[in-house]
């Protein structure tokens, strides 16, 4: 199915790099786009700068996806396209990290980080990252204190789970903390699944991960079970069969939910990225509600649809929790959900 898509579609619509496109189309055209390779290298430089700042401040972090995933999959941080730089860290590290990054020229365009009485729980409980921007390179940096806002298996991904899922990866004489292969793979599946596999790039990540990186199926199964992630794995497997018929598959215990598979297929095959009409948004929210079982999960999705603004912004927080919720609802209603 991949070879029915043009290079232009695979690059623009599905965010694959030209080198990845060469791999799947069996072509050798990426040498015609050295300037695009140069652009990715510029972002790799930004990743290095930010990493060095965090290392120098003794701030522990885990890079999410982006250049580190590219390095794990291909041995080259610039092989795979990426947009933002994402770093996961403990919530106590967020403020010192922002302070140091601001000293190095980064800006907080949406929320000028500050925690007042009554707002700390609002920030850390209802959001999972803050956005910074490098005004020179225009690269967006996201500092995450949580991977997802949703409560899979009633509790979400806990700090303890992350602590037990770390390993070390050496890059240019530095030891980076990364997720172990089983957790990284599950994280990528959940991330891609929650976005309904809108970009083929995310499915390619899974395909290349399964094919290039050894992982324990037993450990993966245990993790998946602990997060009730079977539906996400089932949809991922079916899409892998569609786009990569010869690919090994993930361990799966039951059949794929038809609605989730159809919705994800429609997103993948759509000419445009996403349907932002009212009906399109409703369908997307309904899809997200079905991604995991359990009432706590569904309530966490509904809360983020109706109550909490999507981004942490300066005018959002209020000491009065009721005003805060009303503010979130009103913004959502203005955007017609």
């Amino acid at each position: 199915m991949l070879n029915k898509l043009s290079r232009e579609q695979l690059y623009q619509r599905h965010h694959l790099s030209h080198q990845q496109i060469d791999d799947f189309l069996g072509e050798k055209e990426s040498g015609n786009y050295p300037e695009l390779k140069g652009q990715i290298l510029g972002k790799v430089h930004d990743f290095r700068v930010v990493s060095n700042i965090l290392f120098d401040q003794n701030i522990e972090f885990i890079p999410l996806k982006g250049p580190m995933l590219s390095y794990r999959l291909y041995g080259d941080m610039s092989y795979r396209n990426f947009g933002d730089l994402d770093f996961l860290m403990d919530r106590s590290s967020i403020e010192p990290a922002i302070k140091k990054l601001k000293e190095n020229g980064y800006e907080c365009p949406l929320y000028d980080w500050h925690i007042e009485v009554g707002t700390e729980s609002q920030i850390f409980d209802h959001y999972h990252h803050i956005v910074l921007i490098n005004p020179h390179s225009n690269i967006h940096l996201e500092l995450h204190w949580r991977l997802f806002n949703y409560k899979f298996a009633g509790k979400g991904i806990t700090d303890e789970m992350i602590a037990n899922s770390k390993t070390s990866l050496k890059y240019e004489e530095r030891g980076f903390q990364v997720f172990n292969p089983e957790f990284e793979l599950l994280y990528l599946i959940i991330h891609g699944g929650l976005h309904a596999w809108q970009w083929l790039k995310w499915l390619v990540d899974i395909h290349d991960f399964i094919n290039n990186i050894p992982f324990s199926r037993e450990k993966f199964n245990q993790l998946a079970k602990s997060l009730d992630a079977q539906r996400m794995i089932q949809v991922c497997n079916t899409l892998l069969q569609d786009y990569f018929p010869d690919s090994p598959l993930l361990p799966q215990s039951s059949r794929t939910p038809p609605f989730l598979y159809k919705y994800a297929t429609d997103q993948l095959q759509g000419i445009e990225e996403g349907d932002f009409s009212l009906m399109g948004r409703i369908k997307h929210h309904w899809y997200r509600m079905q991604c995991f079982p359990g009432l706590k999960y569904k309530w966490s999705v509904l809360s983020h649809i109706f109550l909490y603004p999507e981004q942490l912004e300066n005018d959002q927080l209020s000491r009065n929790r009721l005003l805060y919720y009303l503010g979130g609802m009103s913004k959502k209603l203005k955007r017609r959900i």
Partner: protein
Amino acid sequence: MRKKINRLMIRYTRIEDIISGSLHDDLVMMDIDKGKYFALNQVATRIWELLEKELSFDELCKLLLEEYEVEEGQCRREVEEYLEEMRKMKLIKVLDPSSTLGTSS
């Protein structure tokens, strides 16, 4: 004689914190200060790879002669050109123990 001995003592190595990525058989590098990229062809890429370790000019030529079908004289001439170009682009360090300055790049 002194010049010949000096040349034998000169060693080359690459500068490690250059941002680079492979593109087929070529290597694309980023000059962050100038915001420009440039590409090394296949031979220059191989020289760059070999200079992960310090090598003298003769050691480098010997390794390349093992890999490429080329006449020795031509190899030495071209390697000299590549090394000079890479030195000017600040991709490699030239380590001359006889120089009062120590290293130059």
